[in-house]
């Protein structure tokens, strides 16, 4: 480091040694780069799980009974069968088409889906079913909502040891 060196005009020129600062900066940069964790965007699905209300007298007549989506699992937890109110479906895409038809011309806020699943069914299939009944992404990338009220029936069977 040269402090106080005279230049051609006779003024003293102070040259700061930048090397340590650059070293520290690069170390900081490497630290932050290595500790960076990129998380994928996460979203939430609201599900309806109210406590059983104690009602008195005769129960009110249900206007729209819930649409039952039954999902059966094989012994390894993979999806074996989907039934929409007893009607077998080939895929989740077909489930969405059926739900779309059910929603046509109706107030979707009055509709409700009840998921009836086997205990061992992998959770990813449940999320797939929730996705397909609750909406879809149209050609413009906008979300079109179908049925948002989703609830669960108690799981069938029990854990496989």
């Amino acid at each position, binding site marked *: 480091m040269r402090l106080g060196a005279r230049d051609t005009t006779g003024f003293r020129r102070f040259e700061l040694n930048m090397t340590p600062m650059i070293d520290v900066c690069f170390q*900081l940069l490497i630290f*932050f780069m290595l500790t960076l964790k990129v998380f994928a*965007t*996460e979203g*939430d699905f*609201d599900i309806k799980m109210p406590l059983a209300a104690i009602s008195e007298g005769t129960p009110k007549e249900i206007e729209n009974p819930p649409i039952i989506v039954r999902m059966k699992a094989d012994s390894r937890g993979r999806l074996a069968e989907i039934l929409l109110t007893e009607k077998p479906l080939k895929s989740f895409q077909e489930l969405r088409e059926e739900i779309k038809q059910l929603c046509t011309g109706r107030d979707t806020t009055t509709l409700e889906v009840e998921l009836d699943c086997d*205990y061992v069914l992998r959770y990813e299939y449940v999320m797939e079913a929730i996705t397909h009944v609750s909406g879809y992404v*149209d050609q413009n*990338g906008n979300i079109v909502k179908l049925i948002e009220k989703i609830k669960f029936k108690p799981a069938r069977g029990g854990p496989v040891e």
Partner: protein
Amino acid sequence: MKLFRHHVASETCNPDMTPMIDVTFQLIIFFMLTLNFVTEDQSERIKLPESELAKPPEAPWESPIILQLTDAKPPTVIVGGDEVGLGLIKGILQREKQRLQELGRSAAKATVIIRADRQAHTGTVQKLIKECQDLGFERFVLRAREKYTPVSQRT
């Protein structure tokens, strides 16, 4: 005595460091701002299921409690950085409920966010929800990872 004096042509090269330092500082600031220290609520062990409809909530949830269900056998729940068996979750939820009551809030208005592993059993997820319901929690959200839908697959 030196008869001849050799003039060594010495050229000092002083590159302008300013742009490089500018860029370095900008990079440091970027990484500092994107740094996420709070990772206990987003355990890397949980492989979330994907959904094309999963979008971040528009407003933050009221009194959120994040429960992360693993696919371990027997299943465990990660809550506040601690991993406990499903059987012990009731005690933790009871403490959460007491904490909410001390803050003048009710369990019914709190939101239980469930981050369950995609391989977890559906029955286990429902069991976890049931444990929460038994203590008066009513509002539940299921968390999923956002999945991009290609234009060709859009309906």
